[in-house]
Structures are given as C-alpha cells and as structure tokens.
C-alpha cells in the first residue's frame, strides 16, 4: 500500500468489513460522500480565494476580517445565507421555484462521478464516461430555465433565455473539441483517456495539451467551458449590471447559495473534464515527480485551471449578446471542425517535424482568418423607406 493508493485501500477495507449484500451500496455511498465532501469544501475555499484574487487584481485586499487572512469568510457567508429570509414571489410557480436549485445542483455532482481524481479513484468507470458527462451537464440548462420561468419576473426570464441560448450554442464547440480526444484515444471512458496520456516521450509527458490539435482543443474547450458554466466574460445570463442577477433574481437565502454552489461545482466538473481530456488527468508532468500521489496532481491542476478562470474574470469585460453568438457560431464552431480535421491528419501522418508543421499551419491559418472575420465591422447604411415617403 502506497500513499498514492491510500484512499482506495481505506475504502476497500471499509467495504470488505461490510456484509456481502451491502457491499455495492456501501461502496457507492463512500464514493458519493467523498465527492460531495471534497468538492463542497473546495467550493468554500474557492469563493474566498476568488474574492481575494479579484481584490488583488484591483489593488484591494479582499476579505480579511473573518479569521486569519479572512479564511473563515465562507463560514460567515454560509451562516448568513442560512438565516436569511427565504422569499418566494406570490405569483411564482412555487413547486418549480423550489425544485430548480436542486435540479441544478444534482446533475453537476453526478457529472463529477466520471471524473477520475486519482489512480483508481473514480466513482464509476463507465464505458461512455465522456458521453455521460456531457449528457448530465446539459441537464443544468433545464434547471436554469425552470428557475427563470417559475420566478414570474421579466429579468429572470430574460436571464434564462440568454442562458439557454448561450449554453446551447456553446455546447456544440464544447463537445466537438472533446471529440478530438475521443477520436485519438478511441474510447469514451475517462479512465482510458487518462491512461492513454500516461508515460513520457523524452522529458515531456504524453499529454494531449502538447500537440497542436490538443492545445487548440484545450483552449477551445476552456472557452466553451467558461460559457457553459456562465463564468465571466460570458456571464450574460447573470448580468448583474443590466438584468440584476438574471435567472436567480427571485432567489434568496439558501436557495441562492445552492445556485452559487451549483455554478462552482459545475466549474470544477468541467475543469476536471478538461484535465482528464487534455492535461493528462492525474499523471505527473515530469518523470522525477511521479512519487507525488496522483490525486495531488489532479487537484493541483484543478487549482491552476480555476485560478485561470478567476484571472480571466478579473480581466475581461462582459460580452454583448451578438458578440457572444457571433463568437460561438462564426469562430468557435469552425475552429473546432478544423481542429477535428487537424487531429485526423495528425493521426495518419508519420511522427516527426512535418506532422507538427502541417497540423500547426492547419490550425493557425483558420485562426487568423476567422479572427479577422470577427473584427470586420459591418457598416449599416441609413434605412431608406421606399413607400412610406
């Protein structure tokens, strides 16, 4: 038993100690409890780190009052959310209004079940893991629309409609950029995908990030992931400064906290999927670092990606809805298709410099061309009325 496998071993001990009939149930409960415990506490840590990081980006301190360096801030926030009055609008559809936050939180936790957080550490090793992940992740859209519709508020409905439009538009690039990896590995199982990235060629790991199509795919995946989890700069559905809080305007107290939780857990899930697909999952970046337990690597990568999201949030302003849609359909979608093609060519060419050059050019060319297309401004002429005048 090594430090790497200590949690796996402990679980086996506990499960083995149970009577035979209960073993599958106990095993499942242990996995679920671990996922909920770890990621919910990670959510608490991330909120305070995000607020502190954003503060530093704006040359402020951020929260520093509750506990040493403000580290107990999430506890204060949680207590505040719990004891706040839970208002439900009189005109709201009360049942749907009540159930929407739950419908949002449940699928994102379920999606985490297929993300391997360490060697042999995955709740379900499903053959169609990636497919399951995206299928479950798409269920959050339903929750968002439930929340927006049931509140019976124009702002919330506007927010929900924006959210649906955005999530559906970005679902396609998200999945298409993941498809490259599935194509290369030839499996939908997340564990198999990570195993395919194990080992080292020279000093560098065999991560898909270190191939032209993998890098492009990773960037596209992260952009689509930001849009999927309603993170800045794609936070139009919330749009605090224009539609106040979008689809959760009518939520208060703990239901609001649940939306917040769902959003962050969704972010972790999608970051975990990005790590699995492109960053080699739980594998170490260098051969001499392999002694460090695999789950440490997973969470280090997760931290890095979440920091990246916080950094982007502190930098970029919110997009306009037409910019958002143009970006999705005129840039993201063609780029993912080009990337698919590049990945296919990479697969069939012999390893060497020529493969690198061809694939890089195949991606860079369309990138420059499509990027230029986004910047061309359409000039609108004055409308001329032919019959009215």
């Amino acid at each position, binding site marked *: 038993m090594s430090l790497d496998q200590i949690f796996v071993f402990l679980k086996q001990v506990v499960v083995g100690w149970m009577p035979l009939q209960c073993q599958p149930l106990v095993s499942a409960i242990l996995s679920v409890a671990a996922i909920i415990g770890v990621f919910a506490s990670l959510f608490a840590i991330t909120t305070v780190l995000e607020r502190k*990081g954003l503060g*530093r*980006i*704006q*040359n*402020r*301190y951020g929260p520093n009052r509750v506990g040493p360096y403000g580290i107990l801030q999430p506890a204060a926030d949680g207590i505040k959310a719990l004891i706040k009055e839970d208002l439900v609008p009189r005109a709201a559809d009360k049942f749907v209004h009540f159930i929407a936050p739950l419908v949002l939180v449940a699928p994102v936790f379920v999606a985490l079940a297929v993300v391997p957080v360490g060697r042999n550490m995955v709740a379900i090793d499903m053959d169609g893991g990636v497919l399951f992940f995206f299928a479950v992740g798409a269920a959050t859209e339903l929750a968002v629309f439930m929340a927006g519709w049931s509140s019976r508020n124009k702002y919330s409905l506007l927010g929900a409609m924006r959210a649906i439009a955005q999530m559906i538009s970005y679902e396609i690039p998200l999945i298409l950029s993941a498809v490259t990896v599935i194509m290369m590995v030839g499996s939908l199982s997340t564990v198999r995908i990570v195993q395919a990235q194990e080992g080292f060629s020279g000093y560098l790991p065999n991560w898909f990030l270190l191939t032209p199509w993998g890098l492009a795919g990773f960037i596209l995946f992260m952009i689509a992931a930001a849009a999927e989890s309603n993170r800045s700069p794609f936070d139009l559905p919330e749009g605090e400064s224009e539609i106040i809080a979008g689809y959760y305007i009518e939520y208060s107290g703990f239901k609001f906290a649940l939306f917040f939780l769902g959003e962050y857990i969704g972010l972790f899930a999608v970051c975990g999927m990005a790590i699995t697909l492109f960053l080699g999952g739980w594998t170490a970046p260098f051969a001499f670092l392999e002694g460090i337990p695999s789950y440490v690597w997973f969470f280090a990568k997760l931290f890095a990606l979440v920091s990246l999201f916080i*950094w*982007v949030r*502190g*930098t*970029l302003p919110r997009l306009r809805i037409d910019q958002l849609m143009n970006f999705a359909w005129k*840039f993201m979608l063609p780029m993912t298709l080009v990337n698919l093609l590049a990945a296919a060519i990479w697969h069939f060419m012999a390893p060497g410099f020529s493969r690198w050059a061809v694939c890089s050019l195949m991606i860079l060319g369309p*990138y*420059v061309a*499509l*990027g*230029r297309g*986004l*910047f061309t401004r359409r000039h609108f002429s004055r409308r001329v009325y032919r019959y009215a005048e």
Partner: protein
Amino acid sequence: MLGEGIIKGMAETARNFLGSYVSEDRLTTVQYPEERLPQKEAARNFPFLLFDGKDPHIGLRCVACQICEKECPPQCIYIVKSKDKKPDYVGKPQFYPSVFDIDTSVCMSCQICVEVCPFEAIKMDTEYELSTSDRFGELLLNKDKLAKPNEYYQKIHPTEAAEVDERLAAEKAKAGAKAKAEAEAKAKAAALPKPTVPIPAAVPAGAK
C-alpha cells in the same frame, strides 16, 4: 490578431495582482476601524450647539429665537423657550432654550440652521460614528448631548472658528464700547446739574 488584447489585459491584471503584494502604495484601501483618513476641514454632518466657557448651561450661545426651528426643511429641530432670562456673551439678558432637540435620523445635514443663526450658536459637527442600537432614544439628541465647547469648534473647523471668534470679539468690543459710552453719557448726564435755567455756552466748558 484575435487574442492579442486579451493577452495584454491578462498581463496587466497579473502585474496588478503581483504588484499589490510587493508595493503597499498600490493598495488604496484604508482599513477602516483601525485606521482612518484625516477629515477635510469643510467636512460636516450633523449640527451641534456651541457654548462659551466651561458650563454648557451658562455659556450656551443659543437664545431660543427659533429661527432654525422654523427654517429647518425636514423639521428635525424642536425648541422650547425658557420663561426666565440669562445674560448672553455680551452680558445682555436673553432667553435660552429649556429644551433643544435635534432628531439626527431626520436631519439631512443641509446646514441651513447654521446659515440662518444670527448668534453663531449652532454649527456643523464632523462626528460620523453615530451608529447605535437604540434607534429612538439615541438618535434624538437633546441639549446636553448637543452642547459642545467653543474649543471643540476651534479644533474641528479652525479657519471658520477663528473668523467667527474674531467677529464675536469685535461685536463684544463694540458692544462694550457702546455700553461704556452709554455709561459715560449717563454718568455725564448724572454729573450735569439739572438744567433748570439754560445757561448757554458756559455749561460745556464747565463740565469739562
């Protein structure tokens, strides 16, 4: 090229992020309860009553003329005029307020009371930490809480206070001179023999 601006922006925010740990000057935050910014001299929020000397009752400048009460737009001042009189700063007997209340929860800090006061008796305070757990008792300030010595006024608004003090001193001097002149005239009148028979030309010389 697409993404150039994003990279530039990210570099800028990264510089801010790291810089805020390196140089303290970047951080504009004032950690409020522990440290606070010095106030501007013209700062004001709620009015208070001025008194001269040590005893707020004796030295209170207010003469209960009730101009401020009438002028106050939100009507947050409540004054009851006294029955008796007490001498003011020049020694003239004047009424004084037996009740003077200001409801700071109503006051809108407009300074009109200060501007209309002919006696320099009400001025604007700079005290802003007025939060209290008793919203009815503690926010209705009575005469004892409102009365503050002239030294306090000199401390919070030095320039303005110096000007006011000068004017009051001049007025007092003038009033003193006038009183003296009056007294002299009275004394003169008393010294004069009753002019039963008018004696022209000789009398002024004789009086000198």
